[in-house]
């Protein structure tokens, strides 16, 4: 039997046990999925401490809502959705605290991405994996929260435009614009490469 099927089956058993109050089973689920949940929070928040706090909050919420989980998706997907929503709530709190002006939001979706020249270099061919990951890490931090969120939800969470629009409470057009801007900016940032020695 393939490994993922094994772990998936095991996840189901663990979930069933945890739903009956088995904390040991739940702790095993945490151990299995903690990196993925943390990684998603970190991709969105770009802050280690915040990502740890939010991922832990996601686990606590998962415990409280476990009985509502009916297996409509994999447990991992269900968990990532919980942490994504917590991250989005936190980003909204950040936004209110910063009192972003409508002007700033307007400029965010401006047309600068249309003017960036097309990048012909393929970063995966030019960089070692570790360096590529560092580059992506830096580049993600340089995106605005809205652009980064759209990118994370699409590229890492695999959401379709419609679902991203619902999650981010914006129009599909806005999702497409933000995604396009984020990708073009990433391409430009990743193309600033030193030639390998």
């Amino acid at each position, binding site marked *: 039997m393939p490994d993922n099927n094994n772990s998936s089956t095991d996840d189901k058993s663990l979930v069933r046990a945890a739903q009956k109050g088995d904390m040991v089973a739940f702790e095993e689920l*945490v151990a299995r999925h903690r990196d993925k949940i943390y990684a998603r929070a970190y991709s969105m928040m770009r802050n280690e401490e915040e990502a740890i706090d939010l991922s832990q909050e996601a686990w606590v919420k998962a415990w409280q809502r476990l009985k509502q989980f009916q297996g409509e998706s994999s447990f991992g997907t269900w968990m990532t959705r919980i942490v994504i929503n917590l991250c989005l709530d936190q980003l909204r709190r950040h936004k209110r605290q910063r009192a972003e002006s*409508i002007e700033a*939001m307007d400029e965010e979706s401006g047309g600068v991405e249309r003017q960036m020249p*097309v990048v012909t270099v393929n*970063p995966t061919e030019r960089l070692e994996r570790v360096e*590529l*990951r560092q580059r992506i890490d830096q580049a993600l931090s340089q995106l605005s929260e809205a652009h980064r969120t759209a990118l994370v939800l699409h590229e*890492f969470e695999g959401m379709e435009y419609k679902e991203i629009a619902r999650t981010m409470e914006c*129009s599909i057009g*806005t999702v497409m614009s933000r995604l396009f801007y984020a990708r073009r900016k990433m391409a430009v940032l990743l193309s600033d490469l030193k030639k390998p020695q």
Partner: protein
Amino acid sequence: MKQELQLKLQAYVDGELPDHEAGEVSELLAQDTEVRGLVSELKNTRAALAGFEADIKLPENREFYWSKIEREIQRFEKAETAVSPVSIFAAWRRFLIPASAIAALVMGVLMVGRQVGHEGAHRGPETETTFADSGAFTYRDYASGMTLVWLSYPAENDLLETNPGNRLD
């Protein structure tokens, strides 16, 4: 290249275009180098991002990370099941709260009866429905009694003529 085409190419790369439009884009790809360049860039960026999160590890060991979660779960569960000690005050409160609620209800009915047509100060919840993915942003200033709703739809030209300075009326 117009933004509409750029977003269409993106949707093509993402598999979000309807079949007939995807067919049109495929034909365009065969003919136009600029289009091919952008599609290639989008695909390269996607490939670069693939698997990025797989290398991210939680920077805390298993026991420490779990201990905080467990503590928080137990704290919630204790709060839910906590029973306050029975006291005379608590007993009176159990009686007083519903009694005062009934009294308040009666008072409210009498006051409403007197104030037909008069606006109360109570503000109910606000609800909003959007059509056509309007992407509305709402700003509320309670002090000055203003609500500003910024809509990204309809598109710019839908409400005003191209030269609003001349043609708004």
